[in-house]
């Protein structure tokens, strides 16, 4: 048996060593000589604070009871670290940019620097951590008890708790900047991490090779039930435990502290991504063999939770037992120290500081040093947190409830997960959503898991546990709303996290985010887009630099505050004096203060001193989107300059066309007025003559009136044509198409012009295909075109013996109707303009029309899906060709 004296001496020696190490490292670090402490390996080792005594002793206990299931507690963190690029990296970046001091600070800062949210998260973290600390105290006292026999549990627990609190206070609150790395603490827990791994490996190697005699023989004659647990190990509980442990490595306050807050370099995460899983792998490697050996060699009824210790003891290896004790001691102390620092930071920043701010309200001009308040409150908080753990241990110590607390605490802190993930990946998450989700999840956790874990002795009676609240079976804590048949843990996770997530999302979508909430949301979600010094131009207000300096002095201390303000003044290009209180400067100051007192408190203080009014929503959204806009703008700038050149070319072209059109319109108007003027003039002058009847004879009268009549007719015709033209151009003229026999229309046109033909003695030659051809056209309009073409040929024919030939022939899908005459044709240079409005060929020495006929005809032809063109034959004679679509099929 190890003597008490020896054990105490080793213990005290070990503790003294840790104190000395922490002290030495702290001093070296402050002199700038401790670069090695900022190595990725030390960072990884400090993360291993995850492995508490619950791991060190409890894993073997769990393996002895449930087989391989214990491994899930380490698989979850492994998966999180392997996927570090997607989550941890973002958390660490946000932590750095916003100088986050704790998980409560992160959640509060994200949701509009809400202090109420910070208080809620702090209380929840405290509630989940206190029993966990009690568990560590219990395991240390029990292991002590296992070695030396009967001891005063209360006294030893008190001594251990006091020692841990002292260590945390000495090395955890040297500096008020919670954001700064606690080098001494980190060094100590790194050494402890090595000790606990070495101890477990040593015991494991001893068991496998010293006792069992090889890897294979450990498992000889072992029932598979021992290894697989009862039945299928890969069940809902397996998934739940993996998920919970993955959550815990992110959400446990102490894990957040070492991974996010104390991280000095994002690059360290890359190393930790495989080194930390490797550490866990090492911790787990011999758990199963030790458990099996314990079951084999130790008497029935021995506590499996102490196999690591009792196995070497019973086999006479006191040196190994001592090492194992130190390993367990290390696991417990490192957890308590880090957890106490993490939780006390929260308690101090989110509860004590706001209260003292409130109490000091109205007399903040009195230059009290807030630093002192801060340091004192943090020290008191550490003592209080550890003290609470001790009290809890006193009240519930020795009960089985405490052994199960590890997983219960996991589920408790897992309630942070929806708000945390939602906060950094979802812009739409709001403060109200987070608050509602957290409270609901926490209430369900307490009702379905935490309170029932006391077995009916605290708040929930045994009667309620079996029969439900108010005797309602639906409200049974472990079978809520009839969800029975599940493991209590799985049941609690389904209800608390499920409802938590749902409420968080529903309330978020239903509630309106405050401006600051939205801004922070954008800054958090887009942390990789926004550079830290850029997201600063917000919150207008008039601040006094001196007031700000006083505030900074009170929190940071005189010298650091002076340095900070000097550097800020320097940045603004000032050689001396205080910096201008620009928005950027105020935000920078607020960030620095946030590193000391948390975002919510820092915001409250700065707002009070700077006396800012409320911020308008649009302003905030503008700023949040500004960087994004800037980046997009610069990217698009090059594209746009090309595009602009293209567009300006297009515009120039369009402008030219417009000008031409304008010119044409002017021409058209002047021509129209000219055309109208001629008949109007003659009508007017003849009417004038007729108004004095004594000067004209009856014959003349009659002649004049007939002239007026003819001229009015011409005027009407002209107006009709113009009207037709404009309707055609606007597409307003209705022109129902049908199948028309082309030859019949040609005959009808010739018949209509019969009088004119006889009068001018014109010979008409008709050539058409043998079979009648049908075309798709409007009969009347087609006839109008042909009449126009034929009458033109007749009117403008200067030949002695006028001959007009009309031939029609099929060409592919369409029918060509050509109208030729022997009257001189159209000159080539006129060809382009012949279809223009008011255009007349050289043959029109005798004016008969307005010159709209051809352009109307062409418009009609086009409207019918065909065309009217001027063609030139091989012998340079010209003819008009009407093309129309043939009837299909």
């Amino acid at each position: 048996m190890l003597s008490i004296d020896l054990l105490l001496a080793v213990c005290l020696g070990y503790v003294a060593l840790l104190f000395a190490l922490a002290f030495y490292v702290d001093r070296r670090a402050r002199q700038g000589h401790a670069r090695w402490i900022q190595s990725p390996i030390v960072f990884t080792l400090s993360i291993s604070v995850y492995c508490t005594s619950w791991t060190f002793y409890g894993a073997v206990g769990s393996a002895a009871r449930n087989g391989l299931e214990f491994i899930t507690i380490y698989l979850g963190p492994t998966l999180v670290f392997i996927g570090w690029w997607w989550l941890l990296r973002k958390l660490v970046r946000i932590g750095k940019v916003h100088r986050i001091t704790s998980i409560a600070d992160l959640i509060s800062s994200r949701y509009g620097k809400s202090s109420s949210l910070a208080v809620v998260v702090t209380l929840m973290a405290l509630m989940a951590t206190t029993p966990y600390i009690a568990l560590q105290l219990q395991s240390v006292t029990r292991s002590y008890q296992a070695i030396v026999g009967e001891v005063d549990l209360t006294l030893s627990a008190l001594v251990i708790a006091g020692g841990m609190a002292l260590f945390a206070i000495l090395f955890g609150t040297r500096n008020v900047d919670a954001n700064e790395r606690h080098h001494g603490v980190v060094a100590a827990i790194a050494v402890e991490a090595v000790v606990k791994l070495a101890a477990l490996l040593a015991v494991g190697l001893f068991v496998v090779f010293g006792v069992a005699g090889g890897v294979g023989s450990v498992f000889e004659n072992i029932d598979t039930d021992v290894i697989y647990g009862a039945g299928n190990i890969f069940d809902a509980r397996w998934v739940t435990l993996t998920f919970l442990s993955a959550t815990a490595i992110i959400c446990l306050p102490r894990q957040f502290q070492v991974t996010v807050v104390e991280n000095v370099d994002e690059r360290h995460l890359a190393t930790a991504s495989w080194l930390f899983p490797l550490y866990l792998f090492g911790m787990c490697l011999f758990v199963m063999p030790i458990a099996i050996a314990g079951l084999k060699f130790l008497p029935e009824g021995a506590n499996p939770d102490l196999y690591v210790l009792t196995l070497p003891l019973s086999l006479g290896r006191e040196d190994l037992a001592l090492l194992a004790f130190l390993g367990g001691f290390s696991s417990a102390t490192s957890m308590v120290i880090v957890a106490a620092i993490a939780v006390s930071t929260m308690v101090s920043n989110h509860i004590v500081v706001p209260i003292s701010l409130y109490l000091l309200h109205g007399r903040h001009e009195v230059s009290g040093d807030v630093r002192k308040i801060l340091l004192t409150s943090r020290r008191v908080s550490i003592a209080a947190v550890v003290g609470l753990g001790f009290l809890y241990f006193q009240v519930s110590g020795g009960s089985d409830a405490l052994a199960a607390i590890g997983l219960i605490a996991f589920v408790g802190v897992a309630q942070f997960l929806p708000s945390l993930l939602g906060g950094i990946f979802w812009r739409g998450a709001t403060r109200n959503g987070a608050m509602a989700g957290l409270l609901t999840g926490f209430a369900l956790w307490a009702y379905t898991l935490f309170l029932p874990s006391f077995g009916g002795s605290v708040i929930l009676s045994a009667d309620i546990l079996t029969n439900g609240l108010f005797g309602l079976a639906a409200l049974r804590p472990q079978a809520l709303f009839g969800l029975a048949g599940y493991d209590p843990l799985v049941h609690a996770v389904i209800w608390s996290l499920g409802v938590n997530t749902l409420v968080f999302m529903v309330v978020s979508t239903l509630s309106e985010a405050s401006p600051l909430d939205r801004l922070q949301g954008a800054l958090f979600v887009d942390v990789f887009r926004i550079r830290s010094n850029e997201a600063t131009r917000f919150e207008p207000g008039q601040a006094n630099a001196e007031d700000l300096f006083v505030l900074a002095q009170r929190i940071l201390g005189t010298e650091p505050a002076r340095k900070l303000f000097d550097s800020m003044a320097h940045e603004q290009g000032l050689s001396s004096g205080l910096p201008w209180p620009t928005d950027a400067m105020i935000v920078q100051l607020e960030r620095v203060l946030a590193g000391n007192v948390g975002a919510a408190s820092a915001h409250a203080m700065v707002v009070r001193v700077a006396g800012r009014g409320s911020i308008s929503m649009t302003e905030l959204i503008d700023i949040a989107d500004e960087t994004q806009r800037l980046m997009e703008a610069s990217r698009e700038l090059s594209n746009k300059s090309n595009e602009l050149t293209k567009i300006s070319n297009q515009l120039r072209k369009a402008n030219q066309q417009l000008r031409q059109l304008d010119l044409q319109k002017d021409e058209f108007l002047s021509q129209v007025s000219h055309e109208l003027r001629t008949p109007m003039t003659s009508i007017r002058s003849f009417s004038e003559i007729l108004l004095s009847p004594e000067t004209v004879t009856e014959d003349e009268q009659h002649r004049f009136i007939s002239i007026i009549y003819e001229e009015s007719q011409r005027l009407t015709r002209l107006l009709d044509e113009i009207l037709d033209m404009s309707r055609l151009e606007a597409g307003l003229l209705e022109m129902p198409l049908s199948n028309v026999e082309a030859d019949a229309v040609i005959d009808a046109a010739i018949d209509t012009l019969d009088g004119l033909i006889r009068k001018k003695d014109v010979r008409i030659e008709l050539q058409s295909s043998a079979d009648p051809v049908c075309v798709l056209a409007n009969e009347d309009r087609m006839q109008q075109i042909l009449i126009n073409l034929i009458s033109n040929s007749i009117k403008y024919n200067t030949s002695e013996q006028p001959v007009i030939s009309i031939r029609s022939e099929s060409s592919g899908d369409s029918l060509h109707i050509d109208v030729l005459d022997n009257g001189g044709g159209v000159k080539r240079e006129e060809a382009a303009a012949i279809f223009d409005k008011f255009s007349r060929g050289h043959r029109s020495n005798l004016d008969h029309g307005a010159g709209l006929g051809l352009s109307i005809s062409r418009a009609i032809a086009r409207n019918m899906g065909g065309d009217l063109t001027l063609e030139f034959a091989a012998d340079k004679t010209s003819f008009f060709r009407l093309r129309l679509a043939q009837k299909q099929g």
Partner: protein
Amino acid sequence: MNNESHDQIRPLSDRKTSDRSMILLLVGCLLLTPPLAGIFQLDIRILGIPFTGFYLFAVWAGLIAGAAALARRIQKSADWDNPEDTQHQQDMDSTD
């Protein structure tokens, strides 16, 4: 979403590395949880070790090796974006 602009300024090989880390994570999740893990709950032994235990530790070791390989690649890549390298990143942005 958050990595969009980020991805644009990173070389392709680096983006592939981070995509691979996602693949590794998915493979880990699939192999270590039911229903896939249930396939490997067999009543045989390898070197005297029950198969399921052997399987779990083997997958675990594989994941660690994969993560180590990826971490090496990521650390080697030139434009690791760290707050210290922000200036560097800004330069890249402005030339982008």
